């Protein structure tokens, strides 16, 4: 059965996608983020602006579409997220 995802987990999922799918170093498009993030377009757009605003993602503006790349702060956030998730999981809880 599908589980509810907390906001922090959604953010971690989006950042992980932006990190893992950026194999060519040119950023990841919204379509790929939507597919892996399992969010509506409206919600994803809002979240992406928030993540860019907080410096966790970097927006690479092209001629037609924008692509996104995880920033150094985003990588640090993901590392911290995994550490605290590990800590919470030890107590049988999820972030």
């Amino acid at each position: 059965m599908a589980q509810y995802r907390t906001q922090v987990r959604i953010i971690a999922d989006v950042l992980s996608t932006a990190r893992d799918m950026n194999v060519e170093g040119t950023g990841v498009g919204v379509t790929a983020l939507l597919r892996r993030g399992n969010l509506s377009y409206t919600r994803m757009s809002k979240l992406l602006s928030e993540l860019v605003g907080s410096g966790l993602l970097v927006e690479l503006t092209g001629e037609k579409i924008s692509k996104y790349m995880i920033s150094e702060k985003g990588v640090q956030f993901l590392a911290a997220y995994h550490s605290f998730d590990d800590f919470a999981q030890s107590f049988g809880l999820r972030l």
Partner: protein
Amino acid sequence: MSPAPDMALIGSMLQFIGVFVSFSVAYVALKGVKHTESMSLMRLGLAFAFLGFGFLVESIVGLGQLIPRLSITATDVVVGGLLLETTGYFFLAFSHAVDVVMSKRMGAALLILPVMSLSGPDLANILSILSFYFVMYGVVETFYSYTRTRKPDTLFIAMGLALLGVGTFFQWLSLVYQYVAILSLLQIIPQVMGLTILFTPVLRFAVGGVKVDGPI
């Protein structure tokens, strides 16, 4: 009857270990709240902060018994300590209850409280047995979580919580049978062993370390 002075001293020393471990777990959890704004960590942090304050009150009461002129015999203080502890265990159980709802699964329910009827009207007894039920709920859910994740740490923590549960059960027994002095020590030993086990993730976290510029 109060425990013998030697036993009270040992008890207080062991309680201080409980204070240290509880506040350490609370510190890491609340640090996690700062970075991730996770409500799960917030509840976990609150649980251990309350437990820490509860143990602190109990250890001070224990030390007070060693100095007759400063003896803290006020039942209200003892009940206050127990109330803090029970609140801590409540938040621990509540964290798991919320996790059950979030993961859309059936939680392990402890529907009946048969021992409650044996506790009588004394508030300290009731708080003590409530603590026992809350912590046992935590044990069951943590163990269930282990069956899903197969993470050895989770099993370890379930064992630590189970020892805390044994401690709270002896605590209840020591309140019901106050003339059996050894019960208060039997309460503290499994509690401290359990809390020491709970310290493992804190140690791992301290070794691993987390570096992040600030909250998101």
